[in-house]
């Protein structure tokens, strides 16, 4: 039976793993390669590396760490951040990444999704979506340039509409980051994930909000997501992956032991 995936996310800045709260105040957690290796050995099903500065700085970012990861890691991994063209994506895939994840550049030029699908196949093309619940409008809205607080802005897209748009253009997987929940460890945004699940025919990965092991059980049981992504609970040792997997298996969730 296909297993639900546990996906530690490593936010990368200048070759170091960092973590902020609600996208702000980043602190250094450690070096990428040993951390990646530790997670792979601990039982992570997949890793995501998010170059959080790349999309908003407009500078050329050194991605040589991608190859250093590919050399040591024997589980799939995805690289996100600063991939604006088919050529950018091609370089990262050549260095050994299994997937590339696109966020702001897809909002600026949605055709990029079609181009990536055509060049590398649907399975490589992950679309990251930063979604924020706007209390006044009562709607989930897509945000852009979330790596840099001064440039972060709301787009014209409602989250559900953007999901349908990226699927029609050939996305192979969606990572939905629920910004209200990010880094505050109060649980995944089940209501939003359920609503997106209804319109999402490809794998859907929940992101933002994991604080306890029960939150993982809840998101798999209630929102039927294919994977759950988390950062701080793993980096800070609040949740051990082996222990989490044992609990999920005991709760009847399909998990790779």
């Amino acid at each position, binding site marked *: *039976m*296909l*297993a*639900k*995936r546990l996906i530690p996310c490593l936010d990368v800045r200048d070759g170091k793993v960092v973590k902020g709260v609600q996208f702000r105040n980043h602190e250094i957690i450690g070096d990428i390669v040993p951390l990646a290796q530790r997670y*792979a050995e601990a039982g992570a*099903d997949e890793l995501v590396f998010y170059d959080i500065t790349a999309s908003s700085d407009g500078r050329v970012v050194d991605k040589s760490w991608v*190859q250093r990861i*590919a*050399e*040591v890691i*024997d*589980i*799939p991994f995805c690289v996100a951040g600063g991939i604006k063209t088919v050529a950018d994506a*091609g370089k990262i*895939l*050549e*260095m*050994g990444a*299994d997937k590339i994840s696109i966020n702001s550049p897809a909002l600026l030029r949605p055709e990029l999704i079609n181009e990536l699908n055509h060049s*590398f*196949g*649907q*399975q*490589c093309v992950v679309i990251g979506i930063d979604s924020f619940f706007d209390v006044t409008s009562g709607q989930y809205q897509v945000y852009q340039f979330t790596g840099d607080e001064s440039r972060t802005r709301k787009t014209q897209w409602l989250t559900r509409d953007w999901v349908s748009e990226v699927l029609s253009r050939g996305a*192979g*997987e969606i990572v939905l980051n629920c910004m209200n929940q990010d880094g505050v460890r109060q649980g995944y945004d089940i209501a939003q994930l359920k609503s997106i699940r209804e319109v999402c*025919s*490809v*794998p859907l990965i929940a992101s933002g909000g994991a604080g306890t092991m029960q939150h993982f059980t809840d998101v798999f049981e209630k929102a039927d997501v*294919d*994977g759950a992504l988390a950062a701080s609970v793993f980096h800070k040792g609040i949740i051990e992956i082996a222990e989490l997997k044992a609990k999920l298996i005991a709760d009847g969730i399909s998990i*790779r*032991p």
Partner: protein
Amino acid sequence: MKLVIVDTGCANISSVYFAFKRLGVEASISRDAKAIKAADKVLLPGVGTAHNAMAKLQQAELIDTLQHLQQPLLGICLGMQMLTAHSMEGDVACLNLIPSEVRPMQSAGLRLPHMGWNTLHSISNHPLLRGFSVTDYVYFVHSFAVAPDEYSLAQCHYGTDFAAVIGKDNVAGAQFHPERSGKTGARLLQNFLEWQL
């Protein structure tokens, strides 16, 4: 051990190269027919579409070479699909080393692509699968598959059964990605290195 990874221009070549390096084998990556013929073992990687991948083999004039290898040949993912007679992905003739056909997955309503870790069953006692059990998980990413037939060496279930590993004579293929399947995947690659015909 001369291991050659066929340079299909596909995206997972370096992952496959590093996976063998972790097992202590330095593979060469080549599209030179002579080098491929002279290898002890040949690996055919592949990510992308069958149509593009077959076109690349044609451009490199490698079809005939690959069809007449005597040494062990292992295809991975799309590389496995290219070993068959025909793929419905782009309606393309493949290498026809294993007379099976690649069709769109019939997942009985389950989401596609079939992406993630899944288990194997109906595991044969082929040398490539030495040490494998039904509790092992391997990593799949695909939307097309080969239906179980006499060349299936192991199967996987996702909506319906499909062939996870196929083989005939000196040729075998894995639909999953052994280079990304942790210790279980490494075992398949190690078995391939040790495979004596």
